[in-house]
């Protein structure tokens, strides 16, 4: 099993969710993060002071999947979030040795979906 972590643009979340559902990936965990990447940020001025925001708002997805779902999931995320512009985001894939469903106590592959 793998744990797929993706950082995407917040306003792309609806598209990514749609793409994931089409790929039959229905379970995920979403959170708010601030990202520092290639994207330069934007400047705000507040009370006459120009300041550069280099921590940009991003959304982080965590999706645990079985091996055979890794590629479809990654493809779906890319399909939903890619614009070709800097700031599109990143996907990290970790090994996930174990997974447990609290409700039933099921483990591993049965538990993940």
């Amino acid at each position: 099993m793998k744990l797929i972590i993706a950082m995407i643009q917040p306003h792309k979340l609806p598209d990514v969710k749609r793409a994931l559902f089409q790929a039959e990936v229905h379970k995920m965990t979403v959170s708010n993060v601030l990202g520092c990447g290639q994207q330069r940020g934007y400047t705000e001025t507040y009370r006459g002071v120009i300041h550069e925001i280099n921590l940009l708002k991003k959304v982080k997805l965590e999706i645990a999947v079985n091996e055979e779902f890794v590629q479809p999931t990654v493809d779906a995320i890319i399909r939903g979030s890619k614009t070709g512009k800097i700031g599109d985001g990143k996907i990290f894939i970790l090994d996930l040795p174990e997974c447990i469903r609290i409700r039933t106590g099921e483990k591993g592959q049965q538990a993940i979906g």
Partner: protein
Amino acid sequence: MKTGLLKIAVATVVFLLFMSCSSMLHAGDETSHASAVGVDTLWVLIAAFLVFFMQAGFGMVEAGFIRAKNTCNILTKNFLDFCMASIGFFMFGYAIMFGAGNGFIGLKGWFLIGAESGADVPISAFWLFQAAFCGAAATIVAGGMAERMKFSAYLIYSFLISAFIYPVIGHWIWGGGWLAKLNFTDFAGSTVVHAVGGFAALVGTILLKPRIGKFKQDGSPNAIAGHNIPLASLGVFILWFGWFGFNPGSTLSVGDGNLIARIAINTNLAAAAGGIAAMITVWRMFGKPDLSMAMNGALAGLVAITAPCAFVEPWAAVLIGVVGGVLVIAGVVLLDRFGVDDPVGAVPVHGLNGIWGTLALGLFGQKTLGLANNGLFYGGGFTQFLIQGLGVCSVILFVILSMGLIFKIIDITIGLRVSRDEELKGLDIGEHGMESYSGFQIFLTE
């Protein structure tokens, strides 16, 4: 001698009489009495302050009902349109509305120079009261066009409506224009202020198109939840509070207090009835007592009672409020069905209920309370009702045409709507380069 004595006697009597008379007057001087015009001015000013304060109410309601990422933008619009209205109404608006002219437009008193007061109070007081009304009409539109209208476009619009469009209509009805001559009656502005604001918002929001994500591909609506209900709720209370200046203040004098008291009770009852009616309706229709709708209902009741407040009895005020509360829900649902996206309900609250209130005067108004004709339900037949209908229709037509033109021209020249990207990121960053809630972690996504 006799006549001499008589002379003296008469002189004495006359003198004593004179003394007693003037001492009576003098006594009156000692516990010196307040001047009526002074008290009236005081009242008009206090009412003007309350109406001014409604600006805060509008701001908070509009901000609370939209998303956090556009809050600073709507507040800037709301703040600056009052500033623009003040200056625009000072330069041109007052002259157009209350200056001598023809039945269609006033043409005297630019920059208040040589302008005359439209009431018995000094012009400064009368102007301030009227300017606050003008600001209200302008700001109603901000809500309907929220979350996607360009800031620069908004500034231009708000100057134009408060310097020209609103005053022209005001002249027709309150400035002795053609509708006034027909006995069209709108005591405190269901038509002049609210229908104008509401229908300007309708034109604007149709031209602007819905916000991204408001409608699904099949045309069914998505809910885009307001981000700060306590703020909106505070705003509604402030509006209700300010309405006690809006309606009773429109008497422009205190008199023996009877009229202002009647207006105040009617205002309050209509608001309360509207709130309850809307809550019950939304509860029955959608299974949950939605606060945002109940509050819209109270505002609807307030808008509806604005025209008839001086001429109806309390029970009629309750009824007018109830209808207003139901109407507002119907309006929201209808707009959604027609694919019109009005984030804060400006059209149902101010537009629809502006019409309803104006017409209601033709139904429940009473001659004994000062109206030209009895309303339909008091045996006055359809006379007043039809006049009211004619008036509100003409006004709406004028608003739709003139504001449609203005919005169209703005659209072609500098553009009405921000870019898709800016809309998604939020207008706070895009237009003002600042966040409303810096440091708070807020989901930008729907």
